[in-house]
């Protein structure tokens, strides 16, 4: 102790012994203190990256121009409207340098080509992370409260979805995610409001269970509830992992609450033709193009068919034959909003189809299930479970109200703070990994989680995560003018008897009219300008495909002559394009010379035969519609307008706009409208 005091006092003497010495020492200390700031900057991480960048460009051919564009110091992109304060460009110095495309060393790589410049949008808006940070650790990996690490590249399209509420051609993953969100019925339970206030609508069609006992048995309901995918691999119904007694009680309530629907139990009035002709069932099923919407598993285990309607692999296990007959007669009696058309089958055809579909059954499916009559306690308990699990959020169930806000609102799930999330052990601490885990195995987050197990592929899960990550607080905070609104289907409804026919035939399920309807078949908004009366009437009676390489999907609806005429008249009168001048390209004035000239243009100058067939013997084009009888199908005015600008009439069509002169377009129209019959190169004048 004494020794220490002695040393200290001698040190004090040595440093501050006399005023001159004290002044010198204090000056030195001050100098050192002043040097801290520049030294810190010199040793900072971003500064070392800037030095590395200068070293990297030093030997390059365009070093002078690169160095001229290099600015030392911290860079910042500040965009108040987007809420962006990004200093990423302090280290990522080559983002805008096209000549650095060959540099693979981060952080100096050139940014890949995207539609938005970094100066106008910043970085975090797509990549996440902390834009204000100036160290890698803070900017890329921060997990502190209110902060989040940068987004893995595979969810990058969520950035686009913050402003673009519409579907973009360049973001397939985001588009798929949004369609999964709507198709798997997520929004029946989780409300999602877009920034403009509109709601995300479900596109699935969960059946009403109000008359379920007409359609199926309690045993089937039990097996279905236990494992929906065991009945139909492609169903969107999730698995609630119910135990036997719960599934039994739910089936008991559903059957006891079901009210019979008139007509469902009527005995079939005709015997199936199957006994006479075993091929009648399959051929009627094929002719009716059931496969366009319904899939069936083939022997190899692959699903064949569309996904608009339910899978029919084991329909015989599920549907009661009387109900099936009533459904095929008129589906809208059982379900007023079904996308299934009313085919106008004869009783004989219905009997044949019912017999064919009933044979699609699996004797092993549900074979061990025998349920005893339900006790009142079971029925009460079943109702309680239905309320708890939220079954009525999707399905109409007698005696149970549709719950409001059954599950958490997901409108800003993309900005959920990490501090609010309970991560499972061993999980990466990021929002994206939480969402993926929650979609994959919701029940892993605790026994009280009600969310059921969905069956999604890995790419569907990633896409759904992308769509959810796009629902950020930023997307709601930015000004409206910076957002691109979603394009909802219009509420277009055709009027009158024809409107009723269009609804009954469910034309909207496949065709689009005036912004409403499906995309399986051509848009018919301008069909009236396009086709000739005779052809349309014949087509509705007996449809055939126009494109050699397309699978025909349009079914025959067995329309009566008067209904056919009604529909033809309506289409020809109402679906007219104002842009088409009917008198412009009249065929009456076409001389054989003009037709011959058009033929020359068709085969040599424009080489239309690369995609179309006019002469079935010589031409092989396999992409566009066959044109052998285009003269009796399309109106000359439509052909002319189409040749001038195909995209104007049908946006997105693959035929290029060749910028034809009026004269060439007239000659080609003359040649095409002379193609009236099957075979040959048209009328020989």
């Amino acid at each position, binding site marked *: 102790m004494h020794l220490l005091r002695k040393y200290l006092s001698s040190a004090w003497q040595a440093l501050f012994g006399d005023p001159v010495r004290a002044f010198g020492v204090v000056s030195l200390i001050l100098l050192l203190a002043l040097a801290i700031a*520049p030294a810190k900057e010199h040793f900072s991480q971003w500064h070392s990256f800037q030095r590395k960048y200068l070293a990297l460009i030093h030997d390059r051919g365009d070093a002078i121009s690169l160095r001229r564009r290099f600015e030392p110091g911290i860079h910042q992109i500040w965009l108040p409207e987007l809420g962006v304060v990004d200093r990423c460009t302090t280290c990522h110095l080559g983002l805008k340098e096209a000549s650095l495309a060959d540099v693979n060393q981060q952080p100096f790589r050139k940014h890949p*080509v995207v539609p938005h410049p970094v100066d106008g949008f910043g970085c975090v808006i797509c990549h996440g992370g902390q834009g204000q940070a100036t*160290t890698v650790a803070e900017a890329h990996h921060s997990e502190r409260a209110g902060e989040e690490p940068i987004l893995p590249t595979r969810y990058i399209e969520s950035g686009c979805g913050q402003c673009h509420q519409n579907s973009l051609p360049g973001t397939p993953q985001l588009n798929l995610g949004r369609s999964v969100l709507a198709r798997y019925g997520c929004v029946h339970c989780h409300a999602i409001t877009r920034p403009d206030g509109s709601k995300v609508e479900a596109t699935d069609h969960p059946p009403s269970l109000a008359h379920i006992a007409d359609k199926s048995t309690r045993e089937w309901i039990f097996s279905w509830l236990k494992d929906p995918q065991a009945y139909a691999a492609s169903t969107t119904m999730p698995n609630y992992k119910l135990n036997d007694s719960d599934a039994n009680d739910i089936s008991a309530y559903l059957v006891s609450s079901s009210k019979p629907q008139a007509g469902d139990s009527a005995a079939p009035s005709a015997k199936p033709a199957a006994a006479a002709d075993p091929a009648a069932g399959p051929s009627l099923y094929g002719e009716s193009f059931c496969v366009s919407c319904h899939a069936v598993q083939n022997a190899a285990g692959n699903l064949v068919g569309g996904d608009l309607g339910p899978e029919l692999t084991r329909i015989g296990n599920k549907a009661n034959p009387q109900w099936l007959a009533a459904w095929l007669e008129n589906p809208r009696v059982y379900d007023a909003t079904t996308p299934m058309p009313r085919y106008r089958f004869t009783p004989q055809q219905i009997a044949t189809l019912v017999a064919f579909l009933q044979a699609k059954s699996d004797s092993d499916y549900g074979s061990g299930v025998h349920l005893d009559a339900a006790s009142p306690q079971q029925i009460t308990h079943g109702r309680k479970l239905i309320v708890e699990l939220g079954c009525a959020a999707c399905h109409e169930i007698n005696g149970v109200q549709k719950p409001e806000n059954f599950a958490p609102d997901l409108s800003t799930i993309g900005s959920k703070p990490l501090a609010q999330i309970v991560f499972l052990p061993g999980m990466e601490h990021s929002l994206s990994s939480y969402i993926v885990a929650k979609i994959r195995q919701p029940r892993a987050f605790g026994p009280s989680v009600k969310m059921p197990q969905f069956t999604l592929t890995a*790419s569907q899960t990633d896409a759904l995560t992308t769509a959810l990550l796009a629902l950020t607080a930023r997307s709601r905070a930015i000004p409206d003018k910076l957002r691109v609104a979603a394009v909802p289907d219009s509420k277009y409804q055709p009027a009158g008897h024809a409107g009723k026919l269009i609804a009954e035939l469910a034309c909207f399920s496949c065709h689009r009219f005036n912004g409403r309807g499906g995309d399986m078949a051509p848009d018919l908004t301008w069909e009236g300008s396009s086709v000739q009366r005779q052809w349309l009437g014949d087509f509705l009676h007996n449809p055939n495909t126009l494109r050699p390489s397309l*699978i025909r999907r349009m079914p025959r609806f067995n329309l009566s002559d008067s209904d056919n005429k009604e529909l033809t008249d309506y289409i020809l009168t109402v679906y007219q394009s104002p842009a088409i001048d009917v008198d412009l390209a009249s065929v009456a004035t076409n001389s054989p010379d003009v037709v011959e000239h058009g033929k020359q243009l068709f085969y040599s100058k424009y080489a239309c035969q690369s995609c179309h067939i006019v002469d079935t013997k010589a031409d092989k*084009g396999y992409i566009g519609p066959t044109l052998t009888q285009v003269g009796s199908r399309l109106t000359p005015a439509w052909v002319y307008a189409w040749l001038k600008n195909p995209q104007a009439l049908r946006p997105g069509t693959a035929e290029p706009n*060749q910028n034809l002169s009026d004269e060439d377009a007239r000659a080609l129209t003359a040649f095409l409208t002379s193609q009236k019959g099957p075979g040959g190169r048209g009328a020989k004048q």
Partner: protein
Amino acid sequence: MMRRFTGSMTFGTSAILALLSFAAFAGCKRPAPANAALKATAQGTALVESSGGHQVGVTGTALKDPLVVQVNDDHGTAVPGALVEFQGSAGVSFDPAAVLTDASGQATTAVTLGAIAGRYELNAVTPGKAAPVSLAIVEVALGYQERVGAILADKYCSRCHDSESSPERVSNYDNLEVKPHPFTDGSTLNKMSDADLTSIILHGGPALNRSALMPPYGNTLSASDVKALIAYTRTVSDPPYQPPGTVYERK
């Protein structure tokens, strides 16, 4: 919008240093070897690709199909229980990265490509009886622009330019008198400059004295669409496309 700040930070040197050292530590962190638990019971002498090579994926995402390689012995018969390790350049990940071959001698892994668009050369390595045997596998990752090109190509081009035919999508390739070049045909397309490809797309085959069967897309596709199509073509090209070096002005 760009603002510059120069040395205006005040205190916290030690904190910065600590963060720096943390970053350095985080950077050095290596995943533990995945094959620690795998014990090979057999060794082969050859590796062959079964499936999953030459796929075109998207940056940062898993490839559609798994990569499957097979370990064979001298007689060409499959060897079950041999260890196969998968390696790739930075950013590529394998799930799992090391695997024992199954009863049919095949090793399967799911591949996720890195964040940079382009060709990825992956390697499968098996210890082998005498020396390690390795097999190179090529996969392609498309970035945003290349994928826009791929989507456009699928809509406007591939029906003729791709001879692959399926019942849902019948190819028109065989019907054409003059055969179009597949977009992967690097030996032809690599010799054509971006400007030539642009004018063929915009003005059709006759623009470069080629077949009129190739129609002009100048009024249908935008300039950025054409750039995207060319970027896509360059990325899937086989042999790989080498961009011409930049020509710089002399001082």
